Structure formats: structure tokens, C-alpha cells
């Protein structure tokens, strides 16, 4: 089979899986489940101890259970779930078989219709509400499965519990490179280096100049338009002839963002990423240093400097403050 055929087949298999997963929507996830323990004071106390919850409503002769314990009364514990349907087991097995072997809970929506008190006998039924199409998430690719459980106490409705899990294939974790000795000023997270720039014949001159602590801007020989980053042709007129001018080094923050999440091993969030407008009129993205991340402001004057990131890499960055 050629590659194209394999790709088409793979897409076909994904659609086939989607259809098979959809078929489980509306089927029972649990039937006539029975809580293994009646609502009871010891389990309430253990819960409150763990949560640090000292609410007096959960103690004494008129105690109620913390409403957020709702799901706990339905849990199977070490001896397994009661009442779980074959359909739900099949659905999970189908996802396992497709490589989505990991599970994480993502959403929980509970409505409490009446308080639960020690002695209440818990019964429950659940339905598979929806199975999502394949989604890419931070954890990996997978499918969301949403169930809705109706919980009764002594046969009377006591609450509803909608629960969403992600069944996923874990994404490969980034491989950490061996630790290298570096300047502590610039080596923020040990063991991981910043990504290398991709240097090719169209931008080699830029990086050669950076190594000499010069920031070169391309200039079109035909129309004199300046451009940064470096490109083979002029955006204004299309000419491929160019020379360079050296940036004087002063600029202002045109815009910025503060990176909080997701963390990347070579960086130590939060940090500010600036879009700096150079005095020559072109803009470039780089770090703004010499100022706390939350003190960077639009319009702030900055000055070009060169940051040695490790023994092989120097980067043009901008220090807060004008030329002085």
C-alpha cells in the first residue's frame, strides 16, 4: 500500500471508531447501582478531616453529609463498581483498544436535591450522555466521555452528578537534555537549553551579525523598504535584491504578552515577550529584560543588548530604558 492509501485508511479507521463510539450515546452506564455503605458518620468524618472542613453542619445528632460527597457514596472502592453496565465497560475497552489507555476526570457538575443523612441507603443509575469526536489536548489525543448519574436516597431523588472524563493516549513527554554548566544569570531552569534558531541561507547573515553584536535589518535595493525578520524577497515590491542596515539599537515596546502557562522547561514563567518597534520602524519579537515581567508597558523605551543564553547561543534582546 502506498503512503496515500495508508493515510486514507487511517482517516477511515478514525471515522469508523467515531461512529462506533457515538453508538454508545444514550445507553446505560450503570443500572440499579447500590452504594456499598449507607451514608454514615465515620465516612463523613474522614472526608471532613481530609478536606479540612470544620463545618458544624456535618457533625452531631442532626448531621448532614457534605453535599460534595455525593459521588463518594457511589464509588466502588477497591472491590469494584456495582451496577456498571456492559455497555460502559465495552465503551472503555473500545477506547483502550484504540490506544486511549489513560484516563483523567475533567468536569463534575452536581446538583443537590435533598441533604443526605446518616442511615440513608444510596441507589443510582447512570447514562452515557455523549462521547466526543477525537480531540487533541495538552495531555494527548483522546475522546471525552460524559455520563449523567441520578442518585437516590431511600428511593427518593437526592441529586444528579454529571461527570466527564478524557480517555487519551499520553503525549510523549519532552526529552530533557543533559545538564550543562551555565551562567546562573541566564540559566534559569537547569538541565534544559533554549531551542536553537533555524539558520538557513536566507537568514545566515542575520545570525552572523548577532555573533558580532550587531542587529542587521534587510533593505530592499529596489524600493528601500526595510524588513525584519529576514526574507528572500521584498514584501512591498517583490524584488530579491537587498542589502542591510545596522539597527541603532533604540526602540519602544509596541506590544507585549506575559507568558504564564504552559511552562516550557528552558523558560521560567512568568516572563514578558515584547514586540519591539525599532527606531528604524521595523518590529521584532524578543524578551524584555531588566524590568519585572509585570512592569513592562506599551511605549516603554528599550535598548538593544545581546544575551548569552549558553555557550553556543547569543540572542538579541531588549533592556528596559533608553540609551544612556
Amino acid at each position, binding site marked *: 500500500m502506498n503512503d496515500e492509501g495508508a493515510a486514507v485508511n487511517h482517516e477511515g479507521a478514525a471515522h469508523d471508531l467515531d461512529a462506533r463510539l457515538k453508538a454508545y450515546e444514550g445507553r446505560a452506564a450503570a443500572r440499579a447501582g447500590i452504594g456499598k455503605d449507607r451514608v454514615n458518620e465515620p*465516612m463523613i468524618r*474522614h*472526608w471532613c*478531616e*481530609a*478536606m*479540612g*472542613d470544620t*463545618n*458544624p*453542619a456535618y457533625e452531631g445528632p442532626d448531621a448532614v453529609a*457534605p*453535599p*460534595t*460527597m455525593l*459521588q*463518594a457514596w457511589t*464509588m*466502588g*472502592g*477497591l472491590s469494584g463498581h456495582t451496577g456498571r453496565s456492559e455497555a460502559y465497560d465495552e465503551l472503555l475497552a473500545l477506547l483502550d483498544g484504540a490506544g486511549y489507555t*489513560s*484516563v*483523567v*476526570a*475533567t*468536569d*463534575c*457538575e*452536581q*446538583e*443537590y436535591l435533598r*441533604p443526605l443523612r446518616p442511615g440513608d441507603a444510596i441507589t443510582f443509575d447512570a447514562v452515557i450522555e455523549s462521547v466526543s469526536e477525537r480531540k487533541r489536548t495538552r*495531555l*494527548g489525543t483522546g475522546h471525552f466521555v460524559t455520563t449523567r448519574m441520578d442518585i437516590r436516597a431511600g428511593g427518593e431523588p437526592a441529586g444528579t452528578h454529571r461527570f466527564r472524563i478524557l480517555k487519551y493516549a*499520553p*503525549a510523549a*513527554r519532552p526529552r530533557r537534555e543533559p545538564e550543562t554548566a551555565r551562567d546562573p544569570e541566564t540559566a534559569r531552569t537547569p538541565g534544559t537549553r533554549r531551542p536553537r534558531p533555524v539558520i538557513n541561507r536566507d537568514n545566515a547573515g542575520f545570525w552572523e551579525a548577532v555573533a558580532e553584536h550587531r542587529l542587521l535589518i534587510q533593505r530592499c535595493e529596489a524600493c528601500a523598504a526595510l524588513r525584519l525578520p529576514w526574507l528572500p524577497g521584498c514584501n512591498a515590491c517583490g524584488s530579491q535584491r537587498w542589502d542591510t542596515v545596522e539597527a541603532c539599537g533604540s526602540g519602544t515596546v509596541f506590544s507585549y504578552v506575559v507568558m*504564564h*502557562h*504552559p*511552562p516550557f522547561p528552558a523558560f521560567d514563567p512568568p516572563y514578558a515577550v515584547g514586540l519591539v518597534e525599532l527606531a528604524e520602524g521595523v518590529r521584532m519579537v524578543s524578551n524584555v529584560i531588566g524590568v519585572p515581567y509585570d512592569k513592562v508597558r506599551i511605549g516603554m523605551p528599550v535598548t538593544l543588548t545581546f544575551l548569552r543564553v549558553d555557550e553556543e547561543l547569543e540572542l538579541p534582546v531588549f533592556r528596559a530604558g533608553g540609551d544612556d
Partner: protein
Amino acid sequence: MKAGDELPPLEIPITRTLIVAGAVASRDYQDVHHDAELARAKGSPDIFMNILTTNGLVGRYITDHFGPAAVLRKVAIRLGAPNHPGDTMTLTGTVTDIDGDTARVRVVGANGLGRHVTGTVTVLLPGPGEKGAS
């Protein structure tokens, strides 16, 4: 109390003990909530808090503030960044609307990685004359 009011923040140190105690108290024996080695084998850097514990902590945050006469009606949460041992989660809340004796509070729990939990709690507040905070 009015819409826009903010609840005082509650800082919760995320200890290994809290994660394990919360998992066991909620009868959740998934290995990722108590066994660091197996958690790592599944791609997580360490054990992490289960959703039932987060749910319990969000409920506690609300009733700690409004007092023992307040009754939780609905708790709806979504998880984001995991709670790993050694982190701290800070719960904050904002009253979004009040309808008679019922208030809705938007809750966010942030840890060192980002937002662990976002959610909305609907709570029935004690009537006038009954004992309760605020």
C-alpha cells in the same frame, strides 16, 4: 452582599498527605492519586489530586465563607492544571448574581502551573435572623 463582591482567598497547601487522604476519603483508589511511580509511568511527573477532593475543597471554601446555615445547591467544576505535591492552590471567588436567597459564586483555584479549577457554585443563603457570616 451584591454581585461583584469578592470572597477572601483561601490558600491550600497541596501536600502528598492531602492528595492521598482526599483520594481515600472519596474511595478513589486510582493509582495516579497515591503511587508516584505508577503516576510517572502514565506520563505525570508525580501523583495529582483527584476531582472529588477538588470538589470537596470548593464546597468547603463556599460554606467556610457563608457559614453552616448556607446550603450548597449546585457545584459545577472544570479541571485544568493538576495539583501536584509541593504546590499551593489559592481559591478565589466572586459573587456573579443573586436571585432572592440564592447566590451564584464563580470560583477559581490557581496553582503554580495555572488554573487548577474553575467553576460555579449555587448556594442557598441563610435567611434574616439566622446565624451566618456576611
